[in-house]
């Protein structure tokens, strides 16, 4: 039986990456175009200038790369199977990031938008909780703090 090109098949090869370079959002978005995809969601997590009432100067991210990549791939693969995505991608940047830089990009493409949104949030939530990557926040007063070490109250 020939598979219909109009029926969304789970993505064969999912893409994950960890990079020290600026994330090329335009190219990643172009790569997500797929004939079966009626909706493409691109989320970019960007460095903001404040945390828990303190002014942030810049961030540094570090990763345990071999295991981080494995875990990212596992999460993206599970999202692809769960929602039969046409395309899924996750890139995390590490090293020193300035205010406004994109730290993470997650892209999900599906025939319909609601699944693309759901799958995107699923990937983001699991990456934040499970992938061995850490944020060190450097504040304008010269202090610094590792994320999640001492969870601030009302951190959202």
């Amino acid at each position, binding site marked *: 039986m020939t598979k219909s090109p109009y029926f969304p098949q789970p993505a064969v090869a999912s893409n994950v990456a960890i990079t020290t370079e600026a994330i090329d959002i335009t190219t990643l978005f172009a790569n997500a175009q797929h004939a079966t995809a009626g909706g493409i969601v691109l989320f970019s997590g960007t460095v903001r200038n404040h945390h828990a009432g303190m002014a942030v100067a810049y961030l540094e991210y570090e990763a345990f790369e071999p*295991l981080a990549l494995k875990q990212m791939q596992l999460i993206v693969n599970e999202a692809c199977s769960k929602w039969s995505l046409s395309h899924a991608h996750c890139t995390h940047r590490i090293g020193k990031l300035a205010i406004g830089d994109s*730290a993470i990009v997650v892209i999900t493409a599906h025939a319909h938008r609601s699944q693309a949104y759901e799958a995107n949030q699923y990937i983001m939530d699991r990456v*934040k909780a499970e992938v*061995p990557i850490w944020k060190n926040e450097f504040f304008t007063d010269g202090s610094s703090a590792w994320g999640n070490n001492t969870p601030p109250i009302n951190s959202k």
Partner: protein
Amino acid sequence: MIDIQVFAGLKDYFPATFNMEQVKSVADLKSCLEQQQPHSANLLSLSRFAVNEHFVSLEHPLNNHDKVAILPPASGG
């Protein structure tokens, strides 16, 4: 000899990489580190352990030349 690598906030208590001998399991390693640096106990108890790039439980035995990574709660994204 066991190779150990720690990340993020654990580097406030331990060098980023170091070696240990005569630790028989991950639980054994964890309690040795807690004794060396009592203030690290809370963060160690929240951390996950990986041996040779696989997540493992505390019961996991350690053998010569194993590479252990100690991973505090993730804060990426």
